[in-house]
């Protein structure tokens, strides 16, 4: 097919047929990937929507209309879960961005050994999240883990402290681990953006007597703002969907304190075999994330325009 199109183009070099054949050729190149996504992502997505209107479980399924959604709407634990999920997302993303910015600045400092430091930041991102979380699981162990152990020896706490056994501490411990997972990638992208900022800007400011903090605030931050804003969206989506960290550390406990939407969905659908109710939760996730992203992209366009990025 490709050979024919080129011949046709060569014989009659008008624009229209050539463009048309380019279109067919392009779609032939994309089709396999698109088909794959269609079967493994798009179709299940449509199926999730259908299932959310049924009471599907291991026994079978019946159409129940909006009943699943009505139940979610009426359920106060579910409202709490949504609130908790957004709190989880906002807190964790803010910490990732702040730490990422600090990390990138440190790794960008012209001191000997920075090549090595840059490599040493990456392991949390390179290894499977599940494996990193096993390390954290032991760190948080109240009797035998390093954190509680050292804190006891230094007299910071009186006795063993199980980080994952209490509602508050479990939640914030999970946040710390999630931040640990996400920070290297954020640092890396900020670092690359910082390296892309023209040195002339800094030198001009330096000649004018601007200090480091001033240059950071007035040159670095505005220049890398588009990257900060797009990383914020990406990591918000990932953090919202963060499953393994919570599942391995607490499985959503204690008493639901770390149950975010994604964990709740998994528990309902896979843990309790309530496929229909789980699907309704999944649809809520998709709707929330999609509307969040759209609002955010609108905002992103404004920021990009403000900072003169195309």
């Amino acid at each position: 097919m490709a050979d024919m199109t080129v011949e046709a183009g060569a014989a009659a070099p008008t624009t229209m047929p050539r463009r048309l054949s380019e279109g067919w050729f392009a779609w032939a190149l994309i089709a396999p990937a698109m088909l794959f996504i269609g079967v493994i992502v798009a179709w299940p997505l449509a199926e999730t929507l259908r299932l959310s209107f049924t009471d599907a479980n291991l026994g079978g399924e019946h159409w129940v209309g909006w009943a699943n959604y009505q139940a979610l709407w009426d359920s106060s634990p579910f409202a709490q879960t949504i609130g908790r999920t957004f709190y989880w997302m906002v807190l964790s993303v803010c910490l990732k961005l702040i730490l990422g910015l600090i990390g990138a600045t440190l790794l960008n400092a012209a001191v000997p050994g920075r090549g090595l430091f840059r490599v040493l930041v990456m392991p949390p991102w390179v290894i499977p999240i599940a494996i990193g979380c096993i390390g954290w699981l032991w760190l948080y162990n109240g009797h035998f883990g390093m954190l509680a152990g050292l804190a006891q020896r230094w007299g910071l706490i009186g006795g063993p402290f199980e980080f994952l056994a209490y509602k508050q501490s479990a939640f914030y411990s999970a946040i710390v681990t999630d931040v640990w997972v996400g920070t290297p990638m954020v640092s890396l992208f900020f670092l690359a953006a910082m390296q892309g900022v023209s040195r002339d800007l800094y030198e001009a400011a330096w000649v004018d007597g601007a200090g480091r903090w001033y240059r950071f605030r007035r040159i670095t931050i505005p220049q890398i703002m588009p990257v900060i804003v797009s990383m914020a969206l990406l990591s918000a989506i990932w953090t919202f969907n963060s499953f393994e960290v919570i599942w391995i550390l607490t499985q959503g406990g204690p008493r639901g304190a770390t149950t975010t939407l994604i964990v709740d969905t998994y528990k309902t659908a896979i843990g309790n075999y309530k496929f229909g109710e789980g699907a309704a939760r999944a649809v809520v996730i998709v709707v929330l994330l999609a509307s969040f992203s759209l609002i955010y992209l609108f905002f992103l366009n404004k920021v990009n325009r403000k900072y003169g990025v195309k």
Partner: protein
Amino acid sequence: MMDKYTRLQVVGIYAAIFVFLLFMLLPFIEMFMTSLRPLSHLFRSPYTFWGSDFTFEAYSKMWTTVPLLGRYIVNSVYIAGMVTAITMVLVVPAAYAYARLDFPFKSASLSVFLGVNMFTGAVLLIPLYRVLRTLGLLNTYWAMIVPGVAFLIPTGIWLLRSYLEKIPRELEEAAYVDGASRIYTLRRVVLPLAVPGLIVVGVSVFIGAYAQQFLFAITFNQERAYQPLPAGLFEFIGYQSVNWNEMMAAALVGVLPVMVIFLFLQKYLVAGLTAGAVKE
């Protein structure tokens, strides 16, 4: 000069870097320390940071405690390798189309791909489970490979596209003038030039594939012989006692394959990953 630091500033920077790296490496330090402790020492109170009885025994005993451990590590590498191969076959032509060709629904279809990034497997698990059951793939390697590919295609297209855009067009145009077909040009002109980019994308897909196995493994695969390492590690829990020291040793040994690949290629990887993102 502008970049000159005072001695105090240098000390401050190093101190801050130390704290930052300590946070990043803390779980690894803990895993290593735990792997060195004999079981009797592990559950000893009060906590001691360093013990005279530290040994590497766990690194040899773990293979008998969980006899399939070696198999799990091989499975992990095999699954990630297959995911990478299939993803690359699908991504290369698509990325080329987005980088070079002009066609109807170009940006719309690209948004569809990128939109996939919004879902994790967890949202789609139920119907995905049924799709895989219909295709007869449950409890096989494919149960972990197929969903893995789907969720890595978008990133792959995105990264490779920005790489391909940097290859000068003139070479392809020269090939067309000489009468080469589009497929021929893609295969013999573009791909050889894109090898560094293909390596970067391939390695990052491999790392992604190695990292994401846990969820698919615990949901779609019950067959122990096919289990990848992140899921298999949990077998150390639930024998007569929890052999935490061996579990940590196994975890550290299990991440060696990706760490080695990463260390060899990190320079290209970091540059290649960020190039696409920063340009715009």
